[in-house]
């Protein structure tokens, strides 16, 4: 049992308390969802549970947190290693070892278990979680979903009683999310206490026992599963929550106005292969017109990122052509024409202020346009701030701003909603609509059904078929997609 007893916490470097007067009891074996807007204190809360607070992130705390009657504040993360296991958000940066087997063993080896015991524990993890296909592989060859399974396995081998998941689905596609849900189901059935922090929580709807809504560091609401799943759309949106039933969005879909001008991007017979490898992409044909928002869909490894790299001119196609307004484009011309908003904004910010960021790489004077764009993106107040000091959603808007100032006629988005709360998701969606209305061609790679339904006018499905074309998004397509994703 975990009890927060009137607990408050303030980070050393901040003035205000991040968590305020928290009272919360989590029973042993309970499956708990913690949710709320970005920056509400969810992550801080779980840092208190795995000992990172106060040991790693020093600060001032009031009240107490008890795990089975013992105060957690006195324990170091390493004392908690066999008791509380944490699976972090980004599967790429939580690995210590370079191969999977040793990563599974990492925790056990730290604990100083004998070789036999370590092998027993990993074997149990491998069998219980069905990881045998992943053994003895380099972690650099795994997909995000596979990495996450290994991360769970590594924690599982330590046999903690409490599992904490920090936005585990943020980097996963639908198949991997499904697998994650199955793993969680198994852990729940075995009686472990599970705490999940998540924005896109649809996959937990069968699993959760209680959901807690946190706002501004306070516990605002507590729901049972029935209450949580039957929240009306108005209340849900008021709390800034994503939907529990994304597939229901399909029915609400309204056809977007078609823009069939002659101008635009046309791709014919495109194929690509990495050196000596088999074709990653084959026979891809599509046309995009000004104002189209095209969703690029497909499972992990279907070649979505590769397609973006070709379209943005970072890779050269093997066969086929890419034309803009009828003129064939070289990779270099494509680079000048396009802008890519990456999933990880860290790679995209170079300047020392938001203002400088927007004007980087532009040779002529653009101060007027920068000001205009900053206002349009509600970033005016942050003009002088360093981009790295902004929140995730704000950073993303800064990179979109750079695309607007660059005047790119084609903008590509790679997973723009991963890790975003409802408000930020809606905001990105609106922004994309505005850009499209201004005549920009937009491509969006996304796994986020709710977002696709809200935003896209056409889809390009990279799964399976021989010849890949873009289709106008219709409720029928959405329905078949939702079946593929959610059943």
């Amino acid at each position, binding site marked *: 049992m975990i009890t927060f007893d009137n607990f408050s916490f303030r980070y050393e*470097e901040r003035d205000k308390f991040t968590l305020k007067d928290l009272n919360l009891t989590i029973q042993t074996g309970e499956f708990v969802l913690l949710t709320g807007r970005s920056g509400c204190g969810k992550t801080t809360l779980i840092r208190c549970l795995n000992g990172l607070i106060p040991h*790693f992130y*020093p600060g001032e705390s009031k009240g107490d947190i008890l795990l089975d009657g013992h105060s957690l504040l006195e324990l170091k993360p390493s004392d908690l290693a066999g008791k509380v296991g944490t699976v972090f958000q980004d599967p790429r940066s939580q690995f210590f070892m370079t191969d999977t087997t040793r990563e599974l063993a990492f925790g056990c080896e730290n604990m100083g278990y004998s070789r036999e015991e370590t092998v027993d524990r990993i074997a149990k993890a491998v069998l219980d979680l069905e990881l045998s296909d992943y053994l003895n592989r380099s972690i650099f060859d795994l997909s995000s979903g596979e990495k996450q399974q290994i991360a769970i396995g590594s924690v599982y081998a330590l046999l903690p009683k409490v599992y904490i998941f920090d936005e585990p689905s943020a980097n996963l596609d639908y198949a991997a999310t499904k697998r994650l849900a199955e793993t969680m189901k198994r852990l729940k059935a075995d009686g472990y206490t599970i705490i999940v922090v998540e924005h896109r929580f649809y996959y937990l709807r069968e699993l959760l026992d209680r959901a807690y809504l946190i706002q501004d560091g306070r516990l605002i609401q507590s729901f049972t599963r029935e209450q949580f799943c039957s929240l009306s759309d108005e209340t849900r949106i008021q709390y800034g929550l994503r939907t529990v039933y994304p597939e229901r969005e399909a029915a609400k879909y309204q056809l977007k106005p078609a823009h069939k001008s002659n101008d635009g991007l046309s791709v014919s017979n495109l194929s690509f292969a990495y050196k000596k490898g088999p074709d990653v992409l084959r026979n891809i044909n599509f046309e995009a017109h000004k104002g189209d928002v095209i969703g690029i869909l497909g499972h992990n490894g279907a070649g979505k990122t590769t397609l973006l790299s070709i379209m943005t001119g970072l890779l050269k196609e093997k066969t086929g052509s890419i034309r803009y307004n009828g003129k064939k484009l070289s990779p270099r011309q494509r680079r000048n024409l396009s802008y890519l908003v990456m999933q990880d904004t860290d790679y995209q910010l170079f300047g020392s*202020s938001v203002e400088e960021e927007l004007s980087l790489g532009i040779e002529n004077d653009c101060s007027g346009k920068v000001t205009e764009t900053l206002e349009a993106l509600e970033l005016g107040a942050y003009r002088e701030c*360093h981009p*790295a*000091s902004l929140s995730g959603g704000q950073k993303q808007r800064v990179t979109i701003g750079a695309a607007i100032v660059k005047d790119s006629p084609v903008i590509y988005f790679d997973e723009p909603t991963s890790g975003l709360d409802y408000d930020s998701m809606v905001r990105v969606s609106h922004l994309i609509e505005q850009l499209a209305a201004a005549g920009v061609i937009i491509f969006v790679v996304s796994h986020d059904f709710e977002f696709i339904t809200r935003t896209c006018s056409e889809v390009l499905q990279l799964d399976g078929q021989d010849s890949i074309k873009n289709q106008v998004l219709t409720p029928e397509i959405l329905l078949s997609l939702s079946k593929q994703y959610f059943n």
Partner: protein
Amino acid sequence: MNKKLNAKDFILIGVLTALMWIICMIISTVMSIAGPVTNVFYPAVVAIPNGIVMMLLLAKVPKKGVFTICGTIQGILFLLVGGFWLIPVALIVGGVICDFLIMGRKEITMKSMMIAYTIFSGIFAFGAIVGPMSFLQDAFVGAMEKNNIAQEYIDGMISITSGFMPVVIIVAGLLGGLIGGYIGQKALKKHFIKAGLVSVK
């Protein structure tokens, strides 16, 4: 302030040393291919981009031992890729000296960071170039004599490697460190301090 290094500090040292090491390898390889004359100045050039990294590391982990650990790790790696044994020795000795130099005072300041880094680069230039050069000179002269190479050649080589060159190389190393430290601190103020990620007195 907790002055003891913890696991997080060790990880940051590991990550940033990895970066410095890669930068060092790339620059030294390029400069070696470009020719032997540029090769001897690689420690000075390496010190410039690495200054940015080192300043961030020192600002983020203002504790005793950072230089020593950093030097030791780089030394071990130099040993693995065939560096002359004097390089690790110089790196470790340099690290210890610099640690005491910065830690001589209670607070780490911009100035002490810069001085320590400059000295560290100078010692590295000595260990990486000047030391091995004078060591290898004997061996090489011996080999050339065996091969019946003209005496004037041998004299020429000795004069290049023993006269003013070592001084020039070390001074270049110190200068590289100073420039690197200066640029590093500018970058620190422009980006990391402004973004609120580190703070230095």
